[in-house]
């Protein structure tokens, strides 16, 4: 879809929605009699029974784990990103709508010269899944070219050095991969995997929430509202049964 078409379609939607009710909506009168759970109302946890769908190559998983575990290493505060399921989380996300960039505008800019000034942040024509495919290849190629070994075989100190270089824009990756932008994508996804509800496959045993003291999907805080300046030590609660 072209950006102008997209914008026009928003306008069209605005004008028609007031007049026409969406055909797909179910109309309820009175109140629903049934209270039993039906299968299509249940949350669907990201289950890894079938193995990885996007990161099918072992070497890709090793590179990603090497990067993620430097971003969130295992220490006295909690498990590392890969131990907390961030790879599984990311694989599940990339296998679905997020990986396909369904919510993203993926056509080229109409006026490339104005792009950065108008948008204020980098824009991509690749889907997140494609960016990982190219990005991991580029990291591997970079390690082989500079250090002569596979990326995952690098020392933690050397990986830190490379990641810092990417973050600061001082290292350019091969095949046109923008190093700074790929670093930011990985950092963002590692955080999401570590802190999103366990429903999505990461944040295993709610380790991320326990680390920062986030109580999760609790319904009601009235019992605690008066208890200020105190560590409440609340057990976090997930959207799916995690007990």
């Amino acid at each position, binding site marked *: 879809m072209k950006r102008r078409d997209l914008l026009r379609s928003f306008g069209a939607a605005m004008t028609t929605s007031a007049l026409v009710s969406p055909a797909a909506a179910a109309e309820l009168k009175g109140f629903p009699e049934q209270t039993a759970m039906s299968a299509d109302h249940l949350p669907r946890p990201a289950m890894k029974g079938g193995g990885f769908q996007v990161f099918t190559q072992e070497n890709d998983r090793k590179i990603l784990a090497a990067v993620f575990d430097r971003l969130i290493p295992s220490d006295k505060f909690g498990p590392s990103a890969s131990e907390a*399921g961030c790879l599984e989380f990311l694989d599940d996300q990339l296998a679905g709508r997020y990986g396909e960039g369904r919510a993203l505008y993926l056509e080229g800019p109409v006026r490339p010269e104005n792009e950065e000034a108008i948008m204020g942040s980098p824009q991509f024509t690749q889907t997140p899944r494609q960016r990982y495919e190219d990005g991991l290849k580029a990291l591997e190629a970079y390690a082989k070219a500079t250090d002569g070994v596979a990326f995952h075989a690098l020392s933690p100190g050397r990986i830190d050095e490379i990641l810092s270089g990417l973050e600061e824009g001082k290292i350019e990756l091969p095949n046109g991969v923008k190093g700074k932008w790929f670093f930011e994508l990985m950092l963002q996804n590692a955080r999401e995997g570590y802190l999103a509800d366990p429903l999505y*496959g990461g944040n295993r045993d709610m380790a991320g929430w326990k680390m920062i003291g986030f109580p999760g999907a609790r319904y009601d805080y009235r019992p605690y509202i008066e208890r200020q300046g105190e560590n409440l030590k609340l057990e976090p609660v997930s959207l799916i049964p995690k007990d």
Partner: protein
Amino acid sequence: MANWKKIGAGIAVIAVVAAIGAGGWAWHSLNTVASNVADDTTRLADFKSTDQAAIERGEYVMRLGDCSACHTRENGKFAGGYEIGTPFGTLVSSNITPDAGTGIGSMTERDFFNAVRQGIGQHGMLYPAMPFTAYRKFSDQDMHDLWAYMSTVTPVKHDIDENAGMKFPYNIRLAMAGWDMLFFDNSGFRVDGSKDDAWNRGKYIVDGGGHCAACHSPRNMLGAEMGSAYLQGGNLGEWFAPDLTSNPHAGLGTASAQDIANYLQTGSDGVAVAAGPMAEAVEHSTQYFSKADALAVGTYLKSLPASATQPGPVQPVDTPAMQKVALAYEVNCSACHGLGGEGIEGMVPAFKANHGLLSSDATNMIHAMLQGARAAHTHDRQTAAGMPAFDWKMDDRQIADLLTFVRNSWGNTATPVAASDVGRLREFLKASKKMATP
């Protein structure tokens, strides 16, 4: 439902009894002399009452008896078609509109009296799913009024073969003659002169049209209500009809007659909230009771001597294991039921001092946990608040522990709930298993 298993097994035994032929014995239980007060010439299809007062009284009698609960389904008002699944086949409620071919249009008033009060229908003996054993208590006046009301019902052509889905030998209506001989008390309501009018009116409603004992009394091996445990609570398989005697632990001991009246008229007395089959009874029947009648029912029930049920030994809830359960209560239940088990008045049941939930039979609580439940929707309380299902979220042990906690907190005392009971009901209701998680 368990009741139906018992009734079905009873029918098998009774078929033999009937075959032996206890002629003289049969004479009393099948005697229809009480119907002699009714006209036996005009068919319902040829009659339309113009006595507005009688029609209105008759509609009220219909509400007391809750006829529409079974006889009104999607086929039209009173056109029948409600399927009652039993282990012995399916029974279907009949078409009681004045249609001559498929309804009761060819019945005379006398035939109608025979069907409602004696269990003798136009196609033979009625099954005890029709509570004629209770309706036997209906006064002649109420029956005449009900007849007048039924004449105003729009005829619907809807053919029903009530017992075609019943398996042999349960499809033989004559077998019910034997059941009647053993269990049918063929006598009308007797006023007790030593009690006041409200008490007598209450007993008339409870034992007659209200047919409360149909669920709230336990049944014996042959599917008949046990008089010795009258209104002391009955298990219906997937639900439990609580003790209605003045037992202070599991019955109505701490409720006032007015509390009971409020419950019947609105679906809640401020502590308990009607759900399940009782919500249906409130919606279709008891919310239409007059203030005087609702209070009369309360007055009568409060006069019943307390059952012998004792509270179970108190289960300590201050153990470390139970404190984990307390957290589960806080997270899953407290938003509506309150941290003190106080509920939301008239909308969400309290647990504190909600004695209907403290019986040794915890079926209702287990059912609500597995499939959720909905409060009665009445004129006075329109919210019909829903309780969500937790079958997908908790296993049998977790549900059992949570209920044991609730039944022993805030001053409550009740027997612990067994995980095996939760498992049995989970299977029976075809509720889902606890969800597998990554």
